[in-house]
């Protein structure tokens, strides 16, 4: 065992792992965030606390992580390379470990231009950092944890205890390079991988076949990303505008049929699409868990935390394993 986090223990137990994503609020008040966190309690092994996703200013991941810990959940603190240089990142990692945070997901982070494209003004004029990239960040944490050394070479009195995660986009171009991408993250030290949302199950199976041939599934725990679609418009938007997500036409068509079957009643249109979305997500969960080398799921509900309990129970993933060390 490397750090003894609940996530690590469940992975080692061999049971299918469940992580869920939770975004901190655009607020200095955590009341709503705590409510949402409690909707996930008991239904996941760890909860990812995002780090200013889409480059929108939100409560920090490190603070959000501490808040969910107080509620009895285990956080996966996300750390982007966008906003901090190696000095700030390593400093935050030491602080996070001292606070008891035991998992960290390394990601590049959405470019700040994103922040102004949606319904918010964001900070498209911000200066980004990108002193290091994801692969390098993974390597830096591993060196801190396992060798007790900072990136610059200085020794740490006490090394941070962090289970290291990285993201992976398996089903988008350049498809033939994606496995190499994963290999580099794994060789850098990624203990677990959370993938971008999977909709194209055939393509994902093909990529996993390559990953198994490379033996990477044994060196890291791959958790397949599941996004719960809520409407035809959302699916259409993701298919055309969200990088890294490939959605087969038949899934989009299913949702369109559900929408059109509802007649003109607005509530009914919403209800039928949500039902179809849940069905799609739950089918995908069953399908990814059948793939050899997939060790669990990473569920992204995009602010629809109310359905997590239902999904996890219906998919036979409840109760979550209680691991005693």
């Amino acid at each position, binding site marked *: 065992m490397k750090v003894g986090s609940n996530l690590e223990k469940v992975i080692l137990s061999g049971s299918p792992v469940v992580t869920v994503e939770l975004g901190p609020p655009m607020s200095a008040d955590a009341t709503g965030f705590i409510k949402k966190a409690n909707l996930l309690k008991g239904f996941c092994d760890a909860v990812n606390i995002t780090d200013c996703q889409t480059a929108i200013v939100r409560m920090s991941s490190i603070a959000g992580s501490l808040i969910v810990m107080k509620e009895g959940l285990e956080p996966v603190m996300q750390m982007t390379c966008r906003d901090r240089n190696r000095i700030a990142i390593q400093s935050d990692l030491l602080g996070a470990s001292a606070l008891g945070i035991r998992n960290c997901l390394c990601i590049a982070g959405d470019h700040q231009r994103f922040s102004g494209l949606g319904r918010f003004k964001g900070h498209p004029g911000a200066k980004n950092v990108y002193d290091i*990239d994801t692969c390098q960040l993974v390597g830096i944490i591993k060196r801190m944890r396992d060798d007790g050394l900072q990136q610059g070479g200085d020794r740490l009195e006490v090394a941070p205890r962090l289970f290291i995660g990285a993201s992976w*986009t398996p089903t988008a*171009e*350049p498809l033939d390079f994606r496995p190499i991408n994963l290999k580099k993250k794994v060789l850098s030290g990624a203990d677990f991988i959370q993938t971008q949302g999977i909709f194209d199950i055939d393509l994902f199976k093909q990529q996993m076949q390559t990953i198994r041939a490379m033996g990477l599934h044994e060196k890291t725990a791959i958790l397949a990303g599941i996004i719960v679609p809520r409407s035809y418009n959302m699916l259409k938007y993701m298919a055309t505008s969200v990088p890294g997500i490939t959605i087969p036409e038949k899934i989009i068509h299913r949702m369109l049929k559900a929408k059109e079957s509802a007649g003109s009643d607005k509530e009914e249109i919403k209800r039928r699409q949500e039902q179809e979305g849940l069905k799609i997500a739950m089918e995908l969960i069953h399908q990814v868990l059948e793939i050899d080398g997939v060790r669990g799921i990473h569920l992204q509900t995009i602010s629809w935390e109310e359905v997590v309990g239902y999904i996890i129970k219906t998919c036979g993933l409840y109760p979550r394993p209680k691991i005693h060390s």
Partner: protein
Amino acid sequence: MIVGEQKPFEEIWNMIRQYRRVLVLGCNTCVAVCHSGGEKEAHILSEVIQIKASSTDTSIEVNHMGLVRQCENEYIDDAIHNLQTYEAILSLACGVGVNFLSQKIGSIPVLPGLNTTFYGSVEEAGVFAEMCVGCGDCILHLTGGICPIARCPKSIMNGPCGGTNNGKCEIGVDTDCAWYLIIQRMKALGILHLLEEIQPPRDWSKSFHGGPRRMFVSHVMLNKREDANK
């Protein structure tokens, strides 16, 4: 070459309107090639300023001229006495020219008429593209001659990131994903395996982040001293 574009006219006008005798000074090397700051553009801009001045009853005498380069003593020295007869110089050189001339000219303000944008290529007539940021530690041999530092908005060394989108960058469909281009190019060269190597954190001290840089070419400095001693 260095690429720049002229500032909006209103911004230029607000910089110069307080002066009574102004020289619009073109630079006939890089920024002339990108049609922004050569002698020709200096001429046109000086006429536009004159029109603006007469339409607003502002009294300004505006002349124009061009230097081969505004970043070398050799070209400035010949013109310096003429330049010093003006109240202000509106330089259409890149930022290097404005800095250098400011150091040489004494108590006359040198104002920037351009926004210096990047080091770029001439993709086609009228189209310029950024390709280098002068990071001080070239790695183009590792990336098929395509620079991820200059051409990837995240400057990542172990790309692509999750934002690559069918060959385009997440910041917009007008921007090619540099890492997509790198992979295609390395495949074509038969050296894709080089990308499997994990590139360690960079030493940014060789770039601007290490502070303003100077370069010394010792044999040239030595020759100059010997010439002076003769």
